[in-house]
């Protein structure tokens, strides 16, 4: 989707909010939001791609003004309601619906710390030979689709060079739909000169490298 989250190269933004000796969290609630969003993910009703899509489909004005952990909270509430883990009445009242059965959490603290250490790799066994090799020139798609994608707008319709072969990875465009299909396909590091992306006045010593899936690319 051509969403407001797709910020690369958007002009008009000012100085960075740099803070010396910044703490990991500015308030306890920020850390709790992070923890709850990770823990609710353990119900396996959504995945990282659907989670990202839920943030990028926030209303654009909210996306630009809410803080990071406010966005995560909005996403947590949205995903939990959509998965029927909580209801709108429960969100509004703050208490479980009368007569609802209390669940048993799918994971405890030690269980989650073990999962954290193990991670959730996105690499899968290859199902087909990679179409491109190191050094190949490729052109990115000009048009994408209304769903979740990881081809940024500023890199569309650009010619770049394959510089890294990452193996076969879950394709977010498919996985975010939560159909059970992961759509895994070869993933490449693709390098673009700044002049290709931003025009001839760009810094000739600057490049941008992004990790892009095979279906985003065509031979150039």
């Amino acid at each position, binding site marked *: 989707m051509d969403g407001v989250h*797709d910020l690369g190269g958007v002009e008009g933004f000012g100085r*960075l909010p*740099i803070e010396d000796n910044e703490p990991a969290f500015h308030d306890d609630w920020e850390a*709790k939001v992070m923890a709850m969003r990770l823990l609710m993910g353990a119900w396996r009703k959504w995945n990282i791609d659907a989670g990202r899509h839920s943030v990028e489909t926030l209303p654009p004005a909210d996306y630009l003004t809410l803080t990071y952990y406010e966005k995560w*909270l*909005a996403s947590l509430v949205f995903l939990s309601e959509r998965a029927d883990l909580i209801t709108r009445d429960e969100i509004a009242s703050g*208490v479980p619906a009368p007569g609802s059965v209390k669940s048993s*959490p799918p994971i405890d603290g030690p269980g989650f710390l073990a999962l954290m250490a193990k991670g959730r790799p996105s690499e899968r066994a290859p199902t087909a030979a990679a179409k491109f090799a190191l050094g190949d020139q490729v052109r990115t798609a000009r048009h994408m689709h209304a769903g979740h994608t990881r081809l940024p707008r500023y890199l569309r319709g650009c010619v770049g060079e394959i510089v890294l072969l990452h193996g076969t990875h879950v394709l977010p465009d498919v996985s975010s739909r939560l159909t059970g299909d992961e759509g895994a396909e070869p993933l490449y590091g693709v390098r673009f000169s700044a002049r290709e992306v931003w025009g001839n006045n760009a810094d000739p010593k*600057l490049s941008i490298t992004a990790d892009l899936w095979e279906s985003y690319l065509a031979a150039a």
Partner: protein
Amino acid sequence: MPHDHSDDHPHALLPPEPALRVKAIETLLVEKGLVDPGAIDAIVDAYANKIGPQNGAKVVAKAWTDPAYRKWLLDDATAAIADLGFSGLQGEHMVAVENTDQLHNIVVCTLCSCYPWPTLGVPPVWYKSSEYRARVVRDPRGVLAEFNVTLADDVEVRVWDSTAEIRYLVVPQRPVDTDDMDADALAQLVTRDSMIGTGFALQPGGA
């Protein structure tokens, strides 16, 4: 996804103040038995107190002092970093990129805020900001100036946009006059920003 208006989004049902909003949802999730409160505490403790840029600093200091490890890190960062114990969630697939006199690497995630949690912890506000994500792919030297970092005009700049589940760790240049320092002392010079590419490693004795 079908939420076009702010009023329709379920988070609009929560109290306006973030701390109260979070308390309300925490109470609900715990009372419904959807999350274990002890697990909330365990995750908060891990990311607030245990996992942070001190982990990545150990990786960089080892690469500075152990040529075989440096080669391993640049060839297979996932395995080399896991060997020091810093693997897992949001660090499943790692690539290390090394700065030199002629090359400077900078990492961003323009689409969200992807960041290598096991080595750097949770990202700072500026990394997640619209300002950084919008500007650094177009004008990295302008962004670096805000960190008081200036590169010579002939230095190549590579920006890495973390669009997939590959996470990037910058290996900054080792400061000069540090030949007599061991890895533990060198790790103290490796800042978070130097491993994102918006800073240099510190000089010994401050600065």
